[in-house]
């Protein structure tokens, strides 16, 4: 019993990372029907930005903040410089997805060129080795911090989307683009904001993952794919679904790793993708997607 609780707790910590990644993906998918294949690489770029700044003796807080800013600006820049011209030339949904893939490739190449291919240790104020013991359940300081930050970021994001005027505009834009435009909402700016916010969530996840894994140009690939799995599990167009999906995936993975085999742990996410898409493509909390002829 204690073992199950232990695995669940450590699963929740990694699940909150997946939830953050999935939130970013869902946010972009909901607002512009684009799957962002560059999400992982945007995140990596943010983490490298923080790493470089800390290498220049900046304190952690400043580097953290600037990395978030850098990631969001990168995403917004991509939206304005590449996606908008493509949309003006009537690019299909598929080619917009491929454009994000192109951005991912470019970022990946640039990061490997400037950052080097060797894995690097990422300095972080929270420690991976310091553990707290709650009645037999052990949790490291880093995992606890990750979980709390994941929770805070989700709540903060929820408040933005549900309680502010900008959030209202974002919801309107994703619901019905032409209607939102008619109502005088600057949809292009709102969409750019969604991209920025999504990248911000991703960079937070990346910064908390980097100390647990080592920092190398591909360290976000696997968490990014799992974020995808989480988003699918929860429903690609549902924001609460992304959080629920992320947490479920984290716990399931941790339990599978503990009780079945460690090798199976990594494959589980992809099995989940395939099974969910076969059985219930709209996900746990997503609305069914109906196409009219």
């Amino acid at each position, binding site marked *: 019993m204690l073992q199950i609780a232990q695995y669940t707790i450590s699963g929740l910590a990694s699940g909150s990372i997946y939830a953050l990644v999935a939130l970013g993906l869902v946010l972009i998918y909901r607002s512009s029907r*684009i799957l962002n294949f560059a999400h992982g690489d945007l995140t990596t770029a943010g983490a490298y930005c923080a790493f470089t700044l800390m290498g220049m003796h900046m304190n952690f807080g400043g580097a953290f903040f600037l990395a978030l800013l850098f990631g969001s600006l990168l995403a917004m820049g991509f939206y304005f410089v590449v996606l908008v011209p493509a949309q003006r030339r009537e690019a299909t949904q598929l080619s917009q997805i491929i454009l994000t893939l192109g951005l991912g490739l470019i970022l990946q190449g640039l990061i490997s060129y400037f950052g080097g291919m060797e894995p690097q240790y990422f300095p972080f104020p929270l420690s991976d080795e310091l553990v707290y013991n709650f009645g037999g359940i052990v949790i490291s300081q880093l995992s606890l911090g990750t979980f709390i930050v994941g929770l805070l970021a989700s709540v903060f994001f929820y408040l933005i989307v549900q309680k502010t005027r900008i959030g209202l505009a974002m919801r309107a834009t994703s619901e019905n683009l032409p209607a939102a435009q008619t109502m005088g909402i600057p949809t292009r700016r709102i969409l750019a904001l969604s991209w920025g916010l999504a990248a911000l969530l991703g960079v937070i996840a990346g910064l908390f993952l980097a100390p647990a894994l080592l920092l190398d140009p591909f360290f976000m690939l696997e968490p990014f794919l799992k974020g995808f799995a989480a988003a699918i599990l929860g429903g690609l167009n549902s924001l609460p679904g992304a959080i629920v999906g992320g947490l479920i995936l984290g716990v399931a993975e941790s339990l599978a790793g503990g009780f079945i085999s460690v090798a199976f742990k990594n494959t589980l996410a*992809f099995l989940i993708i395939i099974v969910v898409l076969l059985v219930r493509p709209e996900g746990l909390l997503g609305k069914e997607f109906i196409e009219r002829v």
Partner: protein
Amino acid sequence: MDLIESYRDELKIIRKPWTQVWAGLFILSLILLPWIAPSYVTYITIIIFIYTIGVQGQNLLIGYTGQISFGQAAFLAIGGFTFGHLARLGVPWYLSLIAAGLMAGIFGLVVGIPSLRLKGPYLAIATLGFGVAVYQIFVNSETLSGGRMGMIITKLSPLFGLPAVIFHYYFHFLIVFVFTILTYNIVSSYMGRAFIAIRDNDIAAEVIGVNLTRYKLLSFAISSFYTGVQGGLYGLFMGYLEPNMFTFMEAITLFVAVIIGGLASVEGSIMGAAFVILVPQVFSAYKEMVPVVYGVTIFIILIFEPLGLYGRWMKMRLYVQNWPFR
């Protein structure tokens, strides 16, 4: 374009006599190439040939049928390792190669089943999940991947006393030639038109009597057959196989080749394969920049030239033909 008067004309691969001359000259130069060019160039051309097969298959799926797949590396791996295991058992290479294609084709059918329900982005994720899952299964299972050191495959020994590189060149040239002709025939047959109809509008295609289930699955199966054959040939040519040859990046490379070469064009597939092989050669001093070149090319092509390199080539030809008018 030009007027086609009969069905027989429609089925012709090359319609105009001058185009026939150019295509003939191109093939002739390919035949003469290994005797003139240094063996390094021949070697690169062989790899381009091998990739051309997979890119054509991928183009049948993405360009003609409009179904997206990021799981192509999985079919490469399945084809490659099927070939490797059979070759180890002493099965002759042609049978193993066909078996590699068929095995990949069967898995293609399995992956194709979700495509009946899923569209666009959802299908992209499903195939992506499949690709990564297969890769991890091969990484984790040493029985499947032939051990930690990878799987050694005996290379073909040259026949007719030819030097090894030249023999391999002609061997792959013949196979690619057969597959290219096959692709042209698939595209101009009922099957190809059914694929195109599904791409343009699947509901309308069903209404005019295209069996959606059959042709979507067929498209997946054929494309994975091609990819499986590519995997087998790659293993045969390289002489060894290991799971790390079939990462997600490999699937992306095939995908990029299709996009850059030009969707729905066989010539484009060949150009795209040449592109993804030549760029890393040209940029060999800056290996990390290769993805950047791919990415920038994707941007340029999707924004300015959606038909890819082939579209650009057609426009240039049209410009020269109509000169001085425009």
